[in-house]
């Protein structure tokens, strides 16, 4: 479990230090206060490839082909708080894995121009940015290279399994792959039963391929004789199955969820928390979940009251003077008290 986090010069963060993180960390705060950026920092440092920083762009809705031409630093610059500063540094201290630090620094500004329509005949070094992970005593760099096949991004050892879910939940492919992986070890019923508990009209879940859809998770619904792709049934159901699958994938790892309430009918939010926390506990998955919803927080109340030591509340805000994102941490006891007294805590 990650116990502490330090961020320097990343996105909206000039400098941030968070201690005493818990198994379940709930993130609140106004728009542009750094909730998603906090999740992204964890995703980057716990991940093992610079490609994750490009995934983050896509999840934020920027869907360009970032490498149709091979530019210099530009695709990477938006992760920096201050470009004039030397580097980004994100570090975590985990009680099992020890310290892990990611240093990101900008390199050459030179653009690589390729003859139109041609691929390079040999590998070309490409150094607009460097990602260096310090894991314990060891240092790993993930090199970027232009090859015949395109941009190749190197990997470093994985920290632990980490899942990042946006407000929509997991992608169709992600969910299908994860369900299929569980099915291969004959554990898919754990997901199916958890889904049935929350949505009793679901009879079965399977991975199917469909010419129009590709491989996707399908559900058999009571009263229907044809299976339906899960995202077509409801956003909430797709989100819930994504959360459950992500927890299994992030066994002893990290689940990062943005806008966790999104898609859920208000009366199911409490069940969602109960089911999710149960799975997270049994899989030893640490959860970081961001929300804007008071209803969603109130639905968590009985869980926080029952086990306050497992929770903390992180409230993000933007410093009006320097524009940097900041965070305030509240322990589970205070979090529970505020929920019980009915105070605004977002």
């Amino acid at each position, binding site marked *: 479990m990650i116990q502490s986090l330090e961020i320097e010069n990343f996105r909206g963060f000039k400098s941030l230090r968070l201690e005493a993180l818990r198994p379940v960390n709930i993130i609140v705060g106004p728009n542009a206060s750094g909730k998603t950026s906090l999740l992204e920092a964890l995703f980057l440092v716990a991940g093992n490839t610079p490609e994750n920083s490009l995934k983050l762009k896509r999840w934020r809705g920027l869907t360009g082909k970032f490498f149709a031409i091979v530019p210099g630093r530009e695709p990477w610059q938006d992760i920096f708080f201050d470009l004039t500063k030397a580097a980004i540094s994100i570090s975590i201290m985990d009680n099992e894995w020890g310290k892990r630090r990611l240093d990101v620094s900008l390199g050459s500004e030179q653009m690589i121009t390729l003859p139109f329509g041609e691929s390079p005949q040999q590998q070309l070094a490409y150094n607009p940015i460097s990602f260096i992970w310090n894991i314990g005593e060891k240092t790993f760099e993930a090199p970027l290279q232009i090859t015949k096949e395109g941009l190749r991004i190197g990997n470093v050892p994985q920290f632990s399994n980490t899942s990042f879910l946006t407000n929509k939940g997991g992608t169709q492919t992600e969910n299908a792959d994860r369900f299929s992986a569980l099915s291969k070890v004959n554990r898919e019923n754990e997901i199916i039963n958890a889904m049935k508990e929350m949505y009793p009209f679901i009879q079965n879940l399977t991975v199917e391929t469909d010419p129009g859809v590709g491989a996707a998770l399908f559900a058999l619904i009571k009263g229907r004789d044809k299976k339906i792709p899960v995202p077509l049934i409801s956003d909430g159901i797709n989100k819930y199955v994504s959360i459950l699958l992500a927890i299994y994938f992030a066994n002893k790892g990290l689940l990062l969820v943005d806008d966790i309430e999104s898609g859920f009918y208000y009366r199911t939010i409490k069940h969602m928390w109960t089911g999710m926390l149960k799975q997270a506990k049994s899989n030893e998955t640490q959860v970081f979940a961001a929300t804007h919803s008071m209803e969603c927080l109130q639905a968590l109340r009985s869980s926080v009251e029952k086990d306050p030591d497992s929770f903390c*509340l992180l409230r993000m805000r933007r410093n009006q003077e320097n524009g940097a994102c900041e965070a305030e941490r509240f322990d589970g006891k*205070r979090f529970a*008290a*505020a929920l*019980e007294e*009915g*105070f605004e*805590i*977002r």
Partner: protein
Amino acid sequence: MLLRWKKALRLDRPRIPPPPITFDAPFYIVGEGSADAAFVDELLKSRGVPNNNFFVREAEGRTGFERHLDAVQTSSDRPKLTRLAVVADNDLDPAQSFASVQDALQRTGFPVPASPSTIVTGPPVVGVFMMPGPGVQGNLETLLTEAVLATNPQFQPCLNDFASCMVAPVGWDINKTSKMRIQLLIAGCCEEDPACSVAYIWNKSGNPIPLSSSRFDPLYNFLQQIVTT
């Protein structure tokens, strides 16, 4: 069967949660119970303090102070709070009652005054007022009864006679006798609602409690002092 009754009584409907509590005023006052909070609120309003300058809530009993103050610390409006007053009852052991308020302040990370009616500058500025007054046994009802009797001394012998006629009040402690006496005064004066509790008496015609009484000046002056510190 039970479900049918629930449906008939509309108990099956989800309860609509109240909106979350927010506060804009820089001066936060927490009373021990609902009656204490209502009294402080009415006292300040009756003396011309604009109600957007303060915010009063109850802690649901002395044991609720810690939870309530924890909640205040966690509230997203906490940065607006510059002044905090706690209004509690001395009951039978003024020193112990004050110490329990000190504990709640200390455990929730607020500055802790060394004695009742003293103010620590913080931030935030914090003060604790113990009713009926520093070091005196009793509660809110003791203070209210004193104010009624100061304005209407003719009620005193009647109250004494009533108390002496009753078997039960013999040997009651001051907390209980104060509650009995204020309820008797309300029952005898408030035709609109003779059974009204102290928490709801303030807008009733026939309310015998004079908010202008000088018996309330120490509390009012103390709250003013917190504002000006």
